[in-house]
Every structure is written in C-alpha cells, then in structure tokens.
C-alpha cells in the first residue's frame, strides 16, 4: 500500500510501531462517560443560551439607539413653516441647514402673537426665561462684536443663541398645538 521503500537496514520502524498495543484501557466506564456527556451538553446549552441572550440584548440596544437617534434628530430639526398659520394639519418641515433653520425659527416666532390663547403658568415662565436668556446673549453678542472679540467666542455665543431659540421654538410650538386642540 505504501509507495515508500522499506527503511534500509536495521530495525523495521513500521513493524515496531505496529507491534505497539492497539488497545488501551479507556479512562472511564460508561456511567462516567454518560455523566461527562451530560455535563458537556449542559455547558454547551448554557453557552448557546447566553450567546443568544447577549445577541438579543445587543440587538435591542441597537434598535433602541437607532430609534432614539432618529426621534431626537427629527425633534431637533423639525421647525414649523415661518409665517404660516399653524394648525394640527400642518406638519413641521425639516430644515438641514443650521443657519436657515435658525432664521426660519426666528421668523416663525415673530409671527406668533405675544401671548398664547391659553396661558399656562409653567410654560409662560419657561418662555419668559428663554426670552430673557436670548436677550442676554444678544447683548453679549453685540458687546463682543463692538469689542472685536475672537471669532471662536462669537461663534460660541451664536451657537448658544441658536440653541436657546430652538428651545423657545419647541415650547411655543407645543403651546400652539395645545391651543389649537381646544
């Protein structure tokens, strides 16, 4: 069967190897084999259950993260159309550009009456607080421009103003929706 010639002179390695015992007493009997098999199968099952549980947890986490991200993203960029009458039927528009969004938000705020139809003390306080802070930031911005402040400082103040205006938009929009639903 083997195509190699038998090893030269001397001992025949093959014969010596073949003469080695072909059976060695097994390390344990049937009962122990069954016990070990059960332990192994349980371990495998437990590992696969843990693996699937971990996979499911990761999937849920990914789905929740994606859902939250989409929701937050939409909430952040949804701004009602400036100058238009706001009603329940008007969906908010999505504006990608930050500056354009800020302008649109300001125009929309300007179009609103000074006082909503229904005044809620909590929301009014929030609106007043936000308007005060926007006014303060405006003052700071004017002063900074006059003093020729660093562009980084100006940019930070502008970003803060945009954030405050966005918050104000959200609160006023909620007020408008509540008023419209009555």
């Amino acid at each position, binding site marked *: *069967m*083997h*195509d*190699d010639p038998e*090893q030269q*002179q*001397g*001992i*025949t*390695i*093959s*014969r*010596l*190897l*073949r*003469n*080695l*015992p*072909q*059976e*060695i*007493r*097994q*390390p344990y009997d*049937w009962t122990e*084999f069954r016990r*070990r*098999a059960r332990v*192994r199968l349980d371990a495998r099952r437990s590992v696969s259950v843990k693996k699937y549980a971990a996979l499911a947890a990761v999937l849920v986490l990914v789905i929740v993260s994606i859902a939250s991200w989409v929701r937050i993203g939409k909430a952040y960029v949804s701004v009602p159309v400036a100058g238009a009458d706001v009603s329940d039927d008007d969906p908010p528009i999505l504006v990608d550009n930050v500056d354009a969004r800020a302008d649109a938000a300001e125009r929309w705020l300007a179009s609103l009456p000074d006082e909503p139809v229904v005044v809620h003390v909590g929301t009014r306080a929030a609106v007043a607080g936000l308007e005060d802070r926007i006014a303060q930031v405006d003052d700071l911005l004017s002063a900074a421009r006059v003093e020729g402040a660093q562009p980084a400082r100006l940019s930070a103040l502008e970003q803060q103003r945009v954030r405050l205006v966005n918050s104000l938009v959200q609160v006023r929009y909620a007020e408008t929706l509540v008023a419209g639903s009555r």
Partner: protein
Amino acid sequence: MGKLVEIEIPEAVLRQACSGDEAAQVVIYTATAPATFALIRRLITNRAMAEDLFQDTMMALFQRLADFRGEAPFGAWLRQIAVSKCLMFLRSPWHRARLQLESDGGAEFASSALITPAPVVEGFDVEKALASLSPTARAVVWLYEVEGYSHEEIARSFGRTVSFSKSQVARAHVRLREWFEPSGGDRAVSEEIPSGDRQTCTTIQSNSKA
C-alpha cells in the same frame, strides 16, 4: 487486542442503539472505547487532552450513529471521527500556543507522554521514541505506518501537500532510527536507555536485520 478499524458491531445492536437502547449503547462503548482511546493517545500525547478528545469522539459517535450506513466497517467509520477530532486539535491555534509555551519551557516531551509502560523493553523504547517526535510528525507517521493511510489521504486530512506527508514520514524515520542504531543513536540510547537494556536493543536490531 484488535485494531479499531477491524471492529464490527452487529447491525441489530446498532439499530437498538440508534433507537436509544442504553444496553446496546453500552455494548458499542465497551467494544470500541479501548481501541479508540489507544488511537487518540498515539496521536495526542497529552493525557488530559486525549481524554477530552476521547469524550468528544464517543459523543460524536452516538450523536451521528444514525448516519452510519454500513458501507465501511464500523471501526473505520469511528476511526475517521477520532482522527478528524485529533487533527482539528493539532491544527488549532490553542494547541500551537501550548506547544510554543512548552518549548519555551525547554521540555522536549513530558514523561506523561509515555503511553503504555510495556513490560517488553522493545515496546517501551518504541513508545519513548514515538513520544520524542513532534505532534505533527507523530500523527503523520502513525497514520501512515500503522493505520495504513496513503500519503494522499494524509495530505488531504492535514490540508497539505503529498510532499509534506512524505517528508514528515522520512524525517520521523530518521529520528526513530536514531533511537535504535548505534551509529546514529548513541546519544539517544546512552541518554535515555539504562545500560542494562542496551543489549536488548542490539538484539532487536540484529533480529530485524536477519
């Protein structure tokens, strides 16, 4: 003492074992376990690892029993499972890392590698010589010389070329001869074999020459 490949199990027993009859499964286990363990121990010298692989092999045997079609002897089918398990282990990165650690430790082979402390001096020496080979060379030479695998089959099993198998066998032969030939093996013989046993080795050599 039968070779694993020659073991046959009656069809009725196989059918009963397939249907979950524990008594039949015990018959199969008792008939095949010693030869299976012997084969695994020849390929894997580490006893703990060999026991693990033996357990794996026997579990696979009962899990796949329904797949046995009877086209080859039952022992040959089981041998294929055992050899696959052993070769998978030999190819595993974990095993390679372990070998690296052992070689860093300077131990060429552990005394636990000796499988059968055979009463016959010849047998004892062959065990020792076999254990001195690298795991791959030992597996290749065993499959070729004892199990009757061809170089092509060995190459396929290891995912290597036929030349790999041939060179492994040739090198293993050279290494094994060193243990028995006074010309090349003085070092090995004087280091490993008690002086009282040297005469026996010479006798073996003379006999085989004859």
